[in-house]
């Protein structure tokens, strides 16, 4: 397969965005923290497409504006101030974020710029209250060595994260501005990656470098990968927002197949003798065909006095419904495009009909109405006349494009590895200077000081963990990839708990609890330290750790001691255990007489059942064995 990707001329460029773990946001002093409760502050805005320096207006942006799209922004007091509301000029660039970005840049051997200039990148979908995203290049021309292959890093940049899209209510889009302004590092590779597998490896390698700084955020939503994918004869497609690493190779593979499928459709259309001139811009009102329809979607639309409009796509029959890859079809591409340009819910096409309550009879009437030959396809949209017209105009454009080159698009990644149309690729001239923020000069001296004390690479750190703490490779790797590396070191150094026990607890135990729905992220480092302290001093058994953690998550603000008390996990003293064992032997006299030393296992079971987490197994074994022997020798 690798060879065939190379033959196809696959070229992938990777853009990795990751939130930095700073104390404040990039251009103000707000906490980089998301909120879940209802917003305290809401305000309504419109964004107007403005002419860029070159006098160009982004057509997609203009269109959205003309449709009267408004943004309802939601905020709380902790995570947003007037800066995110675009009610106050940005403050100076956050120095902590700059330092982290520089560290990362130097670890990739990139050359820091002399002066950091903040730019504005036009983003008019409402995800930025200003209508632009602030971004700045920190370093250029880095490199990454991937199994001997040289991967150039084009630039390392800092940007502000965008607002979170919450919902869409008609023409009002809800955005939450808590995320807006969180510093993001952006790392862009040259488009030299040749296979899906290699794409994933590069993403992994960059991820390891980022984590080595200990200054990047972790978890879902903190990392977003954009992929630029092209094949020979295909198009440059930008796929945005891949949140999971394991999807990267799949997305590249699917995109290659999508493009190959589209090229095949183009060739087939040519074979059928289709030409761009045949695609007519004739949109027909076919509502009368559906007067008695059982199709619920169309019924509802017609009841609201809206219309069913249709277009004929000559010689497209069978091609709209053909699967390109994994459920992606030309028909579904058209549906996404229709949704974008017409804000319609979806469309029907004859390749998938009769279905959805639309009958055979209706389909043939429709075909008749549209003068459709058997080789032709018909696409219909049921909505308000204006929306349906916009949607079908977009469908006609897409059909025309199907006869030529694959259109360049910005697509969004889906969780199953497929992607969907987001918008046309924006023009190149989207950047202009952010005049409100002064440039930052980087002195050579400062850069050299930083270069002298870069963090350990992931590989160095791992071998040190194995060497110094006797961890096996799997555990060392897990600890390294968790957020507890520093805590692990502190606990091992401050307590007598065995390093392996600490490592297993911080990785596997926590992971298992999380899987069971226990929000272990809410347990603080201090609570974990205290917990290990008590295990080390023998006040708590390691078997009880999971129970204590669960209790702590359920009881916010409580301490480890409270947990032990409430769970009755106070460790049995030797004397207490002796008494318990004596009584147990007394109560099970018959059993002991019959089974003699073999009764040990059963009795052990009784004790562990009652006192699990309160006593060490080794101690129970010792006491029980001793008492049994004494008992048997008496009789």
């Amino acid at each position: 397969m690798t060879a065939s990707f190379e033959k196809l001329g696959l070229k992938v460029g990777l853009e990795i965005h990751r939130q930095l773990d700073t104390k404040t946001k990039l251009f103000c002093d707000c906490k980089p923290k998301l909120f879940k409760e209802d917003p305290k502050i809401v305000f309504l805005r419109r964004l107007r497409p403005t002419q860029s320096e070159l006098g160009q207006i982004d057509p997609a942006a203009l269109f959205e504006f003309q449709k009267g799209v408004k943004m309802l922004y939601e905020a709380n007091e902790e995570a947003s101030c007037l800066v995110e509301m675009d009610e106050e000029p940005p403050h100076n660039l956050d120095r902590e974020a700059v330092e982290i970005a520089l560290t990362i840049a130097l670890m990739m051997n990139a050359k820091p710029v002399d002066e950091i200039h903040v730019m504005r990148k036009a983003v008019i979908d409402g995800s930025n209250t200003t209508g632009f995203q602030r971004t700045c290049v920190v370093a250029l021309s880095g490199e990454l060595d991937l199994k001997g292959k040289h991967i150039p890093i084009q630039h390392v940049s800092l940007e502000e994260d965008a607002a979170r899209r919450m919902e869409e209510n008609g023409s009002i889009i809800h955005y939450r501005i808590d995320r807006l302004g969180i510093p993001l590092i952006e790392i862009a590779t040259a488009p030299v990656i040749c296979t899906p597998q290699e794409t994933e490896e590069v993403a992994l390698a960059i991820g390891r470098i980022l984590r080595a700084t200990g200054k990047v955020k972790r978890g879902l939503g903190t990392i977003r990968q954009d992929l630029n994918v092209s094949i020979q004869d295909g198009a440059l497609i930008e796929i945005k927002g891949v949140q999971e690493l394991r999807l990267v190779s799949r997305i590249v593979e699917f995109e290659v197949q999508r493009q190959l499928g589209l090229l095949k459709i183009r060739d087939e259309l040519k074979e059928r003798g289709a030409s761009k001139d045949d695609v007519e811009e004739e949109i027909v009102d076919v509502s009368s065909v559906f007067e008695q329809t059982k199709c619920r979607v169309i019924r509802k639309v017609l009841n609201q006095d809206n219309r069913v409009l249709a277009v004929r796509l000559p010689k497209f029959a069978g091609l709209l419904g053909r699967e390109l890859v994994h459920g992606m079809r030309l028909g579904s591409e058209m549906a996404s495009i229709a949704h974008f340009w017409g804000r319609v819910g979806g469309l029907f096409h004859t390749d998938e009909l009769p279905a959805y309550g639309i009958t055979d009879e209706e389909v043939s009437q429709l075909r008749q109405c549209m003068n459709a030959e058997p080789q032709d396809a018909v696409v219909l949209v049921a909505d308000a006349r204006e929306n349906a017209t916009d949607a079908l105009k977009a469908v006609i454009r897409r059909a025309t494009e199907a006869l030529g080159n694959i259109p360049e698009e910005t697509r969004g990644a889906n969780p199953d590895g497929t992607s969907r149309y987001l918008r046309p690729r924006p023009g190149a001239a989207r950047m202009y200077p952010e005049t409100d923020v002064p440039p930052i000069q980087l002195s050579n001296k400062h850069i050299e000081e930083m270069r002298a004390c870069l963090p350990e690479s992931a590989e160095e750190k791992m071998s040190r963990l194995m060497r110094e703490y006797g961890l096996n490779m799997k555990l060392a790797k897990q600890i390294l990839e968790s957020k507890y590396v520093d805590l692990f070191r502190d606990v091992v150094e401050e307590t007598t708990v065995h390093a392996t026990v600490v490592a297993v607890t911080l990785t596997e135990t926590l992971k298992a609890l999380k899987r069971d729905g226990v929000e272990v992220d809410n347990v603080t480092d201090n609570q974990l330290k205290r917990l290990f302290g008590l295990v080390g001093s023998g006040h708590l058994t390691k078997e009880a750790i999971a129970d204590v953690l669960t209790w702590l998550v359920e009881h916010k603000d409580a301490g480890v001691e409270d947990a032990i008390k409430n769970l009755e996990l106070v460790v049995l003293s030797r004397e207490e255990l002796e008494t318990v064992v004596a009584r147990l032997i007394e109560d099970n006299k018959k059993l002991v007489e019959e089974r003699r030393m073999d009764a040990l296992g059963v009795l052990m079971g009784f004790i562990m059942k009652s006192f699990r987490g309160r006593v060490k197994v080794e101690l129970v074994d010792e006491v029980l064995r001793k008492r049994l022997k004494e008992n048997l020798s008496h009789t």
Partner: protein
Amino acid sequence: MAIVSTGGTIASRVDYRTGGVRPALTANDLYSVVPELSEIAQVNAEILFSLFSENITPKHWTKIAEAVAKHIENGVAGVVVAHGTDTMGYTAAALSFALHNLPVPVIIVGSQRSADRPSSDAALNLIGAVRASANAPFAEVVVAMHETVSDETVFFHRGTKVRKCHTSRRDTFKSINTSPIARLRNERFEMLIEDYHKRDSSQRIVLKPSFNEKVALIKSHPGLDSSVIEWYVKKGFKGVVLEGTGLGHVSKNCFPAIRNAVENDIIIAMTSQCIWGRLGMNVYNQGRDLLAIGVVQLEDMLPETALVKLMWALGQTKHIRKARKLLTTNISNEISPRTQAEETA
């Protein structure tokens, strides 16, 4: 209707190559930035100057007043003045005193975010201003700006009672000690007060555009050196507005300098730096002493409005007694006879 442009954020575009700012308020520029305007009114745009509003002087007020009056005499439905927001309140007061018997509204408009930013407040403010100049029922000098931080409603503030109260927010302008006179929501005007000067095209505008610049505004503060007041007297100033503390006080140290100024036929007027509220100079001895010296107390007039008004009064007459009389006469609603609770802060 006519738009007279004086400069400021609303009327300019940044040239990103040079970093310079150029005026951009020809009618075509306006239509290209805010296409909706063409549906509301036929706009006649005049670029009077291209100044950041901190560089506007009383001489510019005179020119603006004359330009506005000329458009009104030509029979427009209303005049919009595009202006930087920093000193917009001063110009609004100046036009309120200079333009009498208005047949149509004069709407001063600005923006807090430049018009070449997608999130600019300029569009809504301009639409509001143009709509008001074309259709509003009132015929007064007002400032049209965002009511809140949302792009939803526009407030119309009386020119003599309006103040820029925030460095950067869209809703920076507030009506002080009174209610805004109207709100525009979508295409509808909502009058917020009953007593206003109504649009009436049969009225003939009267222009009184002279201002005397020899007037100063001094803020009272702990440690204020009374020689500051003496300096103005020596320099031939004709009037000083004091921005006193609280109900209208200045330190006792300044009394001799104030007495000397009054004896030299200089008008000394008192306002309060509290911004909200009315003077009460009979409450404490020191207030009564200042009145006895001859300080003119200006009720709930804004200090900035008082400065403009004293400049205007001294521009109308050379007689100190007449100027004093003008200063305390309510010319353009700069003095509210009563203040309701919800209008206070």
